[in-house]
């Protein structure tokens, strides 16, 4: 058999291993209670009519803010709506599970990053965050 073919096949196998290992990690992560709790809380807020009502109002003020010269009223109303949203028990529950999920995923990524010697998720991020990271 042609040696170069064998080499190229071996290289392809190695490359596949990286993607297979990624998929295997995804399969292990998706089963964890911390991720399932996060997904349930996310679904709950997406399905909640009260949140939809507040979100619609917030979007309307955000649009008005973009178009108006004096946006103080809209800004004040946005802050009030944001506070109303954050006070809802369902949102507080979501924030709690989100915080746990972030800590969990960052611990996983820390382990990968320490082992390979560079920050994995940070360097795998497709675009810079709008938060400036």
């Amino acid at each position, binding site marked *: 058999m042609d040696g170069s073919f064998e080499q190229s096949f071996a290289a392809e196998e190695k490359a596949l291993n990286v993607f297979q290992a*990624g998929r295997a990690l995804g399969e292990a992560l998706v089963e964890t209670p911390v991720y399932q709790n996060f997904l349930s809380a996310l679904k709950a807020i997406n399905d909640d009519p009260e949140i939809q009502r507040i979100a619609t109002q917030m979007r309307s003020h955000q649009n008005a803010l973009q178009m108006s010269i004096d946006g103080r009223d809209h800004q004040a109303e946005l802050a009030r709506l944001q506070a109303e949203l954050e006070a809802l028990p369902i949102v507080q529950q979501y924030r709690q599970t989100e915080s746990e999920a972030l800590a969990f*995923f*960052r611990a996983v990524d820390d*382990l*990968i990053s320490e082992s390979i010697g560079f920050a*994995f998720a940070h360097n*795998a*991020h497709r675009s810079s965050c709008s*938060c400036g990271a």
Partner: protein
Amino acid sequence: MELIPEIKQAALDLAEAMKNDETIQIYLSAKEAVQKNPEAAGLENQLIELYESLINRQQQGEKLSEEEIEAFNSLRYQVRVHPLIAQRESALAQIKPYLAQIADEISYILGIDYTTLADVHCSGGC
């Protein structure tokens, strides 16, 4: 946070596969070359130390002189143009799309972008 053994193993398996991957090895070799070169490693350490010192002083309300800022910019430029450091940065830029593809495999299973959840530099709210 303490991870369960199954997650730890899956994370370490991925790290091991990445360390053995030819594409990623190009970057790891370039990174090692910088670490093993006293001049390049020294320049980088000097830059980090100077940056931290300037930031600390600035946070304490001290106004930095133009000479100090110029010295910092000059050192930063020396670091940037050092051949081994430039080579490492170029190698990192080249493997980033590949790393994103690996992360996509995790995200595909999760149904949510892994890097947004796991990147400590990202607040997650963006």
